[in-house]
């Protein structure tokens, strides 16, 4: 299969045009075609959460989403949540302050999940945060700090 399709994607408020095979996932489109490598590939099977992005404000696993599916929708990645002037999003800042990561590889997915988790109203208690952040694995084991960071960011929101 070599046929390519033309896509115009709205990512972080900017338009990206690309020609890819229809089978290319959103994750590979970001990483391999658009140099947006902040979104991570941990399993490519929808099991680890490292590739979490937002589509129209909701969290999705970009490894299980075809790039062609999201044309005409608003895609947000980790590169798109800090302010224009570079000021960190409150969730990003809370992750640094609480040391909510070690190797950093799951971190973009954790942060995208956390932003959505708070917006969904699922950050009301530590138990709720744990439950709604459980789609994002962290093998370094930063879970206690992730909960603390999400709680703090939720309180500020």
């Amino acid at each position: 299969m070599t046929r390519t399709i033309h896509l115009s994607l709205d990512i972080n408020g900017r338009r990206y045009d690309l020609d890819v095979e229809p089978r290319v996932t959103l994750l590979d489109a970001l990483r391999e075609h658009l140099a947006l490598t902040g979104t991570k590939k941990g399993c490519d099977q929808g099991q680890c959460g490292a590739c979490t992005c937002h589509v129209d404000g909701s969290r999705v696993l970009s490894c299980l989403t075809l790039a062609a599916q999201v044309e005409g929708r608003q895609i947000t990645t980790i590169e798109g949540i800090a302010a224009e002037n570079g000021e960190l999003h409150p969730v990003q800042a809370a992750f640094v302050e609480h040391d909510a990561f070690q190797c950093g590889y799951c971190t973009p997915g954790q942060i995208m999940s956390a932003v959505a988790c708070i917006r969904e109203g699922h950050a009301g208690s530590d138990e709720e945060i744990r439950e709604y952040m459980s789609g994002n694995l962290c093998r370094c084991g930063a879970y206690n700090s992730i909960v603390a960071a999400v709680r703090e960011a939720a309180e500020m929101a």
Partner: protein
Amino acid sequence: MTIMEPRKHGDASDGTVGGRQTRFEGNLKVTGGATYALEYPVEGLAYAILVQSTIPAGSVVSVDAKKALAAAGVLMVLTPDDDMGLLVASDWGGNRPENQPYYPLPRQVQYNGQSIAAVVAESREQAVEAARLICITYEKAPHVASFNDTAAGEGKVMDNLTSGWGDAEAALAAAPVQIEGEYSTPREYHVAMEPHGLTVKWDGDQITVWEPSQWSHGMARSYSEWFGIPYENVRLISPFIGGGFGSKGAALAHGAVAAFAARKLGRPVKLALTRPQNFTNYGGRAATRQTIKIGATEDGVLQAIVHRGASETSTYADWPEQTGAATPILYRIENFSSQHRVVPVNTVTPGALRGPGKNPSAFGIESAMEELAYKLGMDPLELRLKNYADRDYQSGKPWSTRRLREALIEGAAAFGWSKRSHEPRSMRDGNQLVGWGIGCGTFPVIQAPSEAMIRILRNGRVEVVSGAIDMGQGTYTILAQTAAEVFGIPVDQVEVHLGDSRLPGSAIAGGSMLAGSILGAVHKAATAARDELIGLALNDEKSPLRDTGANTLTFSGGRIAVPRDRGPSLTLSELMAALGRDEIEIRRNTLPEGATVQEQHQAWTTMAKVQGPTMGEYSMHSWCAHFAEVRVDEDFGTVRVSRIVSAFDCGRLYNPRLVESQWRGGIIMGIGQALLEEGLVDQRNGRTVNNNMGDYLVPTNADVPHIEVISVGIPDYGASALGGKGVGEVGIVGVAPAIANAVFHATGKRVRDLPITLEKLI
């Protein structure tokens, strides 16, 4: 890398050694700006995909690649028929057989999931599709799927792991109280979030490898030896690595395949392993089993320990997961005997996974100690304190520092251990049975040399330069703190460059040996650079500090001044400008004076100069005591860990914020080991059945309670130049037995084989 402004500032002392400085590279990691191996923009990439064997033993008769080669976009197929002309590289110790060919895609199949072919195409999707079209014909041979297979046999005794003193058998027979148990642990896997893979590019006979690495210099050596090119021609780049836990310390077959493909094609190649392929491209922790017999007096004084253990290894290399590693040093014991065997089976050679040896060993001895405590009717805490080891009975040497008693006492106090009710099943909360358990842990202090470079720049910034790795332990941060302290400057005036085999050599980020080693080198280089600057400032005719009559200078608050004087003070940049210097560059290592270039190369690229915990006057180890609370559903047998308090003696902590994170990380991996993690092998074909993150279960956020960690350590300057002992490995050691002991306390059921799944409790 340049530090960005952290959001909050704590105390100014956060930026010195021992301070709670936030992670130096933190902003890069939360913005997606940290660049991992497969994320470098390289022009003209081709994409490689591996094909792994589907039989456990035998040989490849033929590979039919016609369909694959005809598929769209395919550039190349590599099979066992391709002689890559590679030579076997050195082992960890630097030993290398002469002129022995290396076949990263071998004809002989030794385990299911071994790489035997590769497809390279214009895109990843095309390579994946073509890989499915490859047709392999095998000639199967008999296999041994696991060491529980009847054909596996008893394996072979590792003589170097046999130890004993006193007369253990006689003392055991004479002991009035005896217990015996067999404890086993399954295959466990690293499951680092970043899968293995690399991007590789040749420029003539120079090769650049972007690959996650726990040891840039050691892995660069392998590439140079495989391809017969000078070491200097290899550059391995790894400034960020998405978790290792022992899996990324060595260059592996897929690296050789990608590098060969790139050379043959004349264009750069990116090879990413799929998550399932990660389970067999490198070995996880070997499955283990061990029998422990303890003899004691009726009042709980240990008389003898007899230990016999075994672990799986591959059919082509002996890798012991040392079940007797913690057994001899946790308690005062006059009569001891231990033996460990390896049992070859058709698996990839197992590897080091967090707390190698010590971890399954502690599961055995720490479970057995609680079994003894219940047999005696004694509080398990009291039993441990009663048999506290006043020295290392194995080596006969005194401890350098050992605050395990403090860890037990302070941990127990924080946990509320005194409120415990001794009898199993005596604590409950509704339909949940509540249980408490203790597990002690230890990990040796391993010492290795390192080298570092310090550059003072004209703009007043200080650079720390080293090939050392930061895989999340905090190397960037603690090196910045060290330089900041020596020069009396804020951390954000320091830059740290790491993870490149072209930079000064360093110990591996493994065995908990890196921090102690590289901090020693950075401190030495920074101090030498400061001394050089002082010399210039006091003697150079252009220096404003020359005629002050001082014989030294102070570095504090970002200024350089004469001690106890109100005279002139300058910033680093002002002094450099006054001296007319663009740069002061100093390189130092921690090898003995006069080490040759060859010895230096050996030190950075092999383990030959690494020193174990008892090679000096003392026996040096980190220690910990974990206290776990579990809640077991009485009807369903489901176990939840509801509370953990752990107290650690890791000597001086270079950055408590980051150390606490590492301790918790080790404990969480221990929760996984206790309750979830188990590599399942299909006995019919030796296949790892659950080779993915949905079936090989690792702890999720909801599985983990709040974990309280406590430091009881004191600086140990025998262990390292700045007083720290290792922190990364020890955290996991002792967690699984603490949980197993808590499960026994809750339910009255002793589970001796991990993980503790519900069917073992109902």
